[in-house]
């Protein structure tokens, strides 16, 4: 985050889906700046809209979804206006690339992994066969696959889960993208493999000067990779700040609740904190603060008017009425102090 130039700016984005005759408001008026060279993590529960948000950057919304209003500025162009596949092909892969959760579904089982990496190189960077071959070997070396000359002729089923994910990362990097979106890249992997892949991504981010968006629900992963963290709830970013600000100085009651329910903060024999109720129904119009019905400290205004983003520090914002000067002061739950303690070695 040395340079403070946004590489991608989302402004007042609204995304809707039509499902069984009803309209679902998946992204509700989200604005977000992504700065060059940073790693931003987006956390949230399933259904919070974290994947949908990043899919709009690549034109990968499902057919029944559309951008209702708002803009996504990238390199002077508004991606929200892109309609045809032809337009998207100039962005997809070449400028913005994605690593998905399950490596088995993102690779073609009928093609050798060499052919799949080469495809990207020949299509996007118009290399000839031998150039592409050379580059493929380099890429496989970069992502830490031993003996690439032999591996290049093998099929996905001959690789282990961790190795497959490395191949997917190699494909994503093949076209030197500006932005790398990692959608739960390690959720399907074992912890030891996860640690290796996270380490690999961090190395590659430096080497290729990538800007990374990390989507995950695992706060442990977030703490290990992110420069900045955005917390999403019901299609809205409720808090955003640097990693330390969000973990050690959270302001939104939802962030408090999310952090408090971490099993790591519990003590055996005590009850874990848990969030009551369920996330709101996005088919219905949401009035006020979406988290209010589940928030034991909700104020009256929380049910009536949507809070604006209050600024906490130059890098930290939270969307909660608690930050209004007239709001009663409320201390974060005590259990959050355990986050700072080094009692887990």
């Amino acid at each position, binding site marked *: 985050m040395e340079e403070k130039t946004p590489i991608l700016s989302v402004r007042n984005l609204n995304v809707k889906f039509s499902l069984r005759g009803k309209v679902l408001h998946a992204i509700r008026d989200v604005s977000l700046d992504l700065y060059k060279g940073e790693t931003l993590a987006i956390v949230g*529960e*399933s259904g919070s809209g974290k994947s949908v948000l990043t899919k709009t950057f690549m034109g990968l919304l499902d057919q029944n979804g559309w951008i209702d209003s708002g803009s996504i500025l990238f390199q002077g162009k508004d991606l929200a206006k892109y309609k045809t596949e032809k337009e998207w092909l100039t962005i997809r892969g070449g400028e913005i690339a994605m690593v998905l959760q399950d490596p088995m579904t993102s690779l073609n089982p009928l093609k050798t992994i060499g052919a799949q990496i080469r495809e990207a190189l020949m299509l996007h960077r118009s290399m000839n066969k031998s150039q592409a071959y050379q580059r493929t070997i380099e890429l496989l070396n970069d992502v830490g696959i031993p003996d690439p000359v032999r591996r290049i002729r093998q099929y996905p089923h001959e690789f282990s*889960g961790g190795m497959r994910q490395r191949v997917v990362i190699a494909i994503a990097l093949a076209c030197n993208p500006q932005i790398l979106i990692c959608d739960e890249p390690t959720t399907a992997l*074992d*912890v*030891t*493999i*996860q*640690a*290796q892949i*996270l*380490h690999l991504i961090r190395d590659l981010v430096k080497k290729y000067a990538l800007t990374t968006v990390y989507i995950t*629900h*695992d*706060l*442990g*992963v*977030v*703490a*290990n990779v*992110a420069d900045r963290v955005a917390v999403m709830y019901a299609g809205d970013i409720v808090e955003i700040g640097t*990693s*330390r600000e969000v*973990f*050690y100085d959270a302001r939104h009651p939802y962030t408090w*609740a*999310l*952090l408090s*329910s*971490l*099993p*790591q903060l*519990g*003590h*055996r024999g005590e*009850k*874990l*904190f*848990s*969030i009551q109720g*369920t996330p709101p129904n996005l088919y219905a119009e949401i009035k006020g603060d979406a988290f209010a019905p589940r928030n034991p400290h909700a104020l009256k205004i929380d049910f009536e008017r949507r809070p604006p983003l209050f600024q906490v520090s130059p890098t930290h914002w939270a969307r909660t009425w608690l930050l209004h000067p007239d709001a009663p002061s409320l201390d974060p739950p005590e259990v959050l102090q355990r*986050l*700072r303690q*080094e009692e*887990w*070695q």
Partner: protein
Amino acid sequence: MSEQPILSVRDLKVDFGSHRKPFHAVRGVSFDVFRGETFGLVGESGSGKTTIGRAIIRIYEAAGGEILFRGQRISGRISKDLDREVTRKIQMIFQDPMASLNERAKVDYIVAEGLYNTDRRLTQEQRRQKVEQALLDVGLLPEFASRFPHEFSGGQRQRIGIARALIMQPEFIVADEPISALDVSIRAQVLNLMAELQKERGLTYLFISHDLSVMRFICDRIAVIHKGLLMELADTETLFRHPLHPYTQALLSAVPMPSPDLRQDEPPVLYDESMHDYSVHLPVWCEIEPGHFVRGSEPELEAYRKIIAEG
């Protein structure tokens, strides 16, 4: 904890594949689980942790060794009565509540299915009451009995899975990754529920998971399994504070901590089996200090003892 273990696994072996070319999924595992405790079994995919759980509830046959439940052998050939007893007293909670419930059956039937199979003398009315009580016990409304699984969220479905186990009034529950497929906020709810039920009914859990951070919170003792063999077994705090086996250490170092200041910038510690030299001294499973077991050869055990003596 009482002296007599409720469940003993003795040198258990489980094989898959043909008899001529078997694959040894579990290669001789022994441990005791005591009444009222939560015993954790942690390992990576393919380590055999789920296979052990399934061998205990008699889905898989043991190829060697034996399993004792309340002092009685329940592996291999057993009498019909004992089989019915075991099916009742040992229940399982599965990982993915989206996949483990019959989509075409109503909650009523899903929860009562075990009763249909073991207690045919129950009247319709008694059965209905039992289902209602089981649903209440897990924090669901009795009205839910007439709904289908797809009408519920992930957390509610996992509660249905727990109700289905509870209705049999089990003593021992094998929980195979019961919260891995759930969202962070829902995990806490399910863990709390499991802890509450344990306190009320004196249940014993075998908690199978790959997630050490969760296990620290709920397990009394933890066994670490790797490629079908136990590597280390100790009470939770000992295992976290003084892990002896290099595999346990590698596993612990890989757990991401939810605190940016504890970020690990060094490459993760890797475990390589070839680091052990077992050509001269064969590894044994040894109780190195009371309640703390570790697998190693004689020279390795000597080194571990030194570490313990130095504190």
